[in-house]
Structure formats: structure tokens, C-alpha cells
């Protein structure tokens, strides 16, 4: 049974994480929590893009919604963590529903542009209502380690535990969703929305559902981010965050959950490492800080051009090569056309249709 398999995997992973967290120092525990945050956010985005074929450049904004929700609930209502996390997810899911409804009819670049606008515009809401959202300074969040663990229990380890647990639960849910009928329906509308509609699928509803799920993940990740960094401010949710999430999803492998782990690892670990290396080689702080940014760009371009299936896809291909199993159909977007004798074939599987065949470009 799929659910059982996923639960077992989660338990095993949980055990490994627990063991590691005890061994690692405080900073590494903190990074573990950070990684968990991004795993959740990237997994949601990766599902949206890889399974349902919709793109979002605004997931940073959803994280902001979740983070602010969490901060407000904890500050004003003193809600405990186990209630705050689901609440943040639900509130952000509602936001995702609104965006999804608006976006259900949009395709490709139009959708990307609209979500981009969202990412740019939403942080200014916090500044607009400083009384509620704390303006530019933001809101500070405190998390206390439960007394049951003892007074000397390192708070970062508690964060690592909480975040890892949340991440594992999310991954199990997503894994089941991906294997369920909903997941198959998503793939269908991704690959050929017209055929899917003809087969009776409600394309718009599925699209909105994908946005809801993906936004919920981002909201949860935002709440997790709030407790790890203890501060929620507009500056944490800039466009760069949305782009980093996209980079993580693409690099890890769109549509795969393990890919979310690879992507999160890269996003959390690589930039500080690169900056350290750069500074130790004599580059100034400003330059060194920009190198990871430039590197994201290179990653996005190179991966899309040469390895459209990301790390996970590369690993799968490697495994296939080593085990000599017949090639599985990965079926994620960005798949190349069959190479070979083609120069330009008018009847090939994907052809950008001539302008005159389109009535309304951006909508279905």
C-alpha cells in the first residue's frame, strides 16, 4: 500500500534526522531547520510546475502570507505551534485559491508575469499597514522550547525537530497526492489540457486545486521560516526568494519530491559556502555576496538547456544506465524532442503554432 510505504520511509528518514540532530552542533541544527523550510516550499512549487504544468514566480509571497499569519497568531493569540502551522497553511491555501482562481485561465508567460507581479507587490502591503504588520521592521517571533525537554536543551535542536517533522508530514501527504487520482489528473492537464478536458476533467478546478496545495506548502514553510529566524519582515520575502525557490525546484528536478531535498540543500548550503570561498580568495564582501546570485542564474540556464530534469532526473538516468532497466517516461515538462534527422519538422510533437492560429493568447 502506497501510504504505508510512504509512512515507513518517513519514519526511517525521521530516525536518521533525529540521530543526526543530536550529533550536530547548534548552527548545523539551525541549517537543518532551514533546509526543512525550503524542502516544504520547494516541494509545493515543484508539484505545481512539474505535475500541473503551471508556473509561479510568486511563491515567496505565499511564504510571506504564512509567515505573517504565524507571527500574528503567536503574538496576539498565543497559539501553540501545533495549531499555528496548520492555521498558516490553511490561510495561505485560501490565498492560493484566490490567486489560482484568477490564474486558472492564464498560461505560460502570462501566468508567470502575473505571479511575478504578485511577488513584487505583496510585500508593500506590509508597509502599507504598519500597525498590523509592523512595517519595514516587521514582527518578531519567539518560540520557547517545551519545558519537558529540560532547561539545557538546545533551542536550535528543537527547531530542527519541529521543522523536520513538519517537512516529513508534508512530503508524505504530497507523495500520496502525487500517486492518487488527483496527481494523475494533474499530469493529464499538464500534458494536454485539451485532451484532458475532452476526457471529462475539470481543468480549471484541477488547476486551482494545484495552486491551493502548493500555496499551503509555501504557507507552512513561511510559518516554519518565522520560527527559525524569529523575525518576519518584508525584507525576507523579496523577489529573490521566489527566484531561489524556482531555482531549487528546477535544479532538484521538477515534479519530484526528492528533488525538493536536493534543491533545498543547494539553496541553503551552497550560497554561504560560495561566499566563504570567495571572501577567502580576497573578493570583497559585496562581490562575494553576488556570486551565489549569479550562480543561481547560471544554474537555471544550464539546467534548463542541458539537464531539463535536474539532479533527480540525472540520478534516475544514471540508475537506469547502471541497472539497464528500460527507460521510464519521466514526463516532466521541458523534455526535449527526439533528436536525430530533424532540421525542422512541421508535424513534430511540439510545434509553436503560427500566430494566426491563436485567438486569445493568454487564456484557455
Amino acid at each position, binding site marked *: 500500500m502506497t501510504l504505508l510505504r510512504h509512512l515507513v520511509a518517513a519514519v526511517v528518514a525521521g530516525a536518521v534526522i533525529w540521530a543526526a540532530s543530536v550529533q550536530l552542533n547548534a548552527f548545523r541544527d539551525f541549517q537543518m531547520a532551514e533546509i526543512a523550510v525550503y524542502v516544504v516550499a520547494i516541494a509545493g512549487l515543484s508539484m505545481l*510546475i512539474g505535475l500541473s*504544468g503551471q*508556473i509561479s*514566480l510568486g511563491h515567496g509571497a505565499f511564504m510571506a502570507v504564512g509567515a505573517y499569519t504565524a507571527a500574528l497568531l503567536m503574538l496576539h493569540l498565543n497559539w501553540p505551534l501545533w495549531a499555528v502551522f496548520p492555521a498558516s497553511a490553511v490561510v495561505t491555501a485560501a490565498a492560493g485559491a484566490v490567486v489560482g482562481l*484568477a490564474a486558472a*485561465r492564464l*498560461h*505560460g*508567460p502570462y501566468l*508567470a*508575469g*502575473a505571479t*511575478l*507581479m*504578485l511577488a*513584487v*507587490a505583496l510585500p*508593500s*502591503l506590509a*508597509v*502599507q499597514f504598519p500597525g498590523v504588520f509592523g512595517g519595514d521592521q516587521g514582527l518578531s517571533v519567539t518560540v520557547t522550547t517545551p519545558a519537558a525537554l529540560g532547561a539545557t536543551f538546545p533551542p536550535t535542536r528543537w527547531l530542527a525537530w519541529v521543522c523536520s517533522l513538519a517537512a516529513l508530514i508534508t512530503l508524505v501527504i504530497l507523495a500520496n497526492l502525487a500517486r492518487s487520482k488527483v496527481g494523475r489528473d494533474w499530469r493529464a492537464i499538464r500534458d494536454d489540457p485539451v485532451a484532458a478536458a475532452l476526457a471529462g476533467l475539470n481543468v480549471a478546478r484541477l488547476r486551482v486545486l494545484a495552486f491551493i496545495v502548493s500555496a499551503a506548502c509555501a504557507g507552512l514553510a513561511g510559518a516554519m521560516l518565522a520560527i527559525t529566524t524569529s523575525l518576519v519582515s518584508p525584507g525576507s520575502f523579496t*523577489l529573490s526568494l521566489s*527566484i531561489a525557490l*524556482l*531555482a531549487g525546484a*528546477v535544479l532538484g528536478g521538477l515534479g519530484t519530491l526528492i528533488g525538493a531535498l536536493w534543491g533545498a540543500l543547494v539553496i541553503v548550503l551552497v550560497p554561504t559556502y560560495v561566499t566563504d570561498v570567495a571572501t577567502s580568495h580576497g573578493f570583497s564582501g*559585496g*562581490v562575494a*555576496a*553576488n*556570486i*551565489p*546570485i*549569479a550562480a*543561481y*542564474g*547560471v*544554474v*537555471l*540556464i544550464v539546467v*534548463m*538547456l542541458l539537464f*531539463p530534469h535536474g539532479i533527480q532526473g540525472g540520478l534516475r538516468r544514471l540508475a537506469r544506465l547502471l541497472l539497464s532497466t528500460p527507460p521510464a517516461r519521466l514526463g516532466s*515538462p*521541458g523534455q*526535449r524532442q527526439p533528436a536525430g534527422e530533424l532540421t*525542422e519538422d*512541421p508535424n513534430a510533437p*511540439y*510545434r*509553436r503554432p*503560427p*500566430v*494566426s*492560429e491563436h*485567438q*486569445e*493568447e*493568454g*487564456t484557455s
Partner: protein
Amino acid sequence: MTEFLQFTLGGISFGMVYAAIALSLVLIWRGTRILNYSQGAMAVLTSYIALTVINHTGSYWEGFVVALAAGLVLGALIERTVIRPVENRPPLNAVVVTIGLLVLIEGIAGIIYGGQYRSFPTAFSITGLHAGSVPLGISRNDVFVAGAVLVVALALAALFRFTATGLRLRAAAFNPYASRLLGVRVGRVLTLGWALAGLIGALAGLLVSPNTFLYPSSMDSIFVLGFTAAVIGGLDSPVGAIVGGLILGVVLNYVGGYLGSNLVSIFGLIALMAVLLIRPSGLFSVTRERRV
């Protein structure tokens, strides 16, 4: 009333910058059906290059010309290397690649020039103009901004309508398959389209950087608003890009002036969503007949 006049005129000037970005987006969209998310970043880079030249030579106009030339080269280079492979693949690939370019170019700008806000010179004086004793709210430079974009747009229109190159650009954009059958070197034509878009984008950067100061991500919000303007006008319509830019510029200036500058991007979002939901093909799109 004076305030309204000032906001209107100022909005026109700003709007022309959005129009320029929109125009370059439309140019690329028509030719390759790709939305170039790095258009703003490209403009940042060319503006930095202009600034370097200006500081070196002391001449604004030298920097101006070099920036435009750099825009041409940059556009052509990007199309030939990074865009060509994704032109015939699903749209997601192009979106990710151009986002990657956005990030890469901004990162490179940060590495070479640093992240601090730099002031950028204007072509003409920025003292307010007056009609008699009424302050108009715009300066000579603002008039130059509007005029420069208009001139470039008209030149482009002339290129398209009256020259063989323009005919090739249009044919390749409308029907690349038929054009190839007729011997049009579609690849070269597309490169030219991107080069021209790079030039227009560079112009936009030069015109707006004095207002926003120049730093690696200074064109991010301008780009988003330029995209909104293009959508309002219709991604296929160069005329729509200009009109959309003007409308957006003026409306947003009212918002900024009467309601506060913080609300501008939110309003832009509302405007974008409104257009996308009500009339997604934009104001000026020609409803195309279906192929027989």
C-alpha cells in the same frame, strides 16, 4: 487642478519608459513567442556600461550611444546562445531560462559594479518647466524622455513597414515556416529582433535610471510595470505597447500622487489582473481569423 496637470504630464513621461520596455517585450514576443524576463536586467547592465563611459569621458552622449550599441549586441548575443535552443520547446523552458538570465545579469552587475545606489546623469536639465506662471511638473528632460521613445518607436515602425528587413521580421514573426520556405533566414531575423529589443530596453534604462538610481535590481519594478503595459496594450501590438505604457504611467502617477507611492505596485497588480481577466488579449489585439 495644477496638481492634476502635473500628475498627468509626469505620468506621460514615466509612461513612455514603461512603453519602451513594453515595446521591447512586444518585439521579442512577436518574433519568438517568448517573454523576455531579463529585459530589465539587460537595461541595467547597459546603463552601468553607459555610466562607466560617461565617468570616463565626461560626455553623456557618448555613454548614451555606447549603451544603445551595447543593447544591440547584448540582445543578439543572448538570442544566439541561450534562447535559440529553447525557441521550439515548451514555454516553461523559456520562462526559466530568461529568469535565469535576469538573475545572472543582475548578479554580474553586482559583482562588477557593486550594490550601492548610484546616481545617473540626465540628458537635459531637470528644472521644472512653466507655462507662464503655472508649474507644469515636468522638466526639459522629461520632454526628452517622451520624445526619445516616440522617435525610436516611429523609426521602428518605419523599419517594419517600408524596408525589406522589416518585411522579413514581420513574415518570420507571423509565419516562420512559410518564411523559411521562401528562403528567409529566420534564425538571423530572430537575432535581429532580439538585438532591436535590446536597444530599446537600453534606451529605457538610460531614461529611467536618473529617477530610480542605478543598482542591480533597479529595473525590477519597472520591468514588471512594462510587462503590465504590454499586456494592457496587447502583447502582439507595438501601438498597444505605447498606449498601454501611457495609460499605465498616467494612472499610476495619479495613484502615487493622490494615494501614496507605496500603493503603486499593488495598483499595478490590480491593473494587470483586471486586464488579464477581462480582456486578456489586450486593448489593441487584432482578433485573428482562424486558419482554414
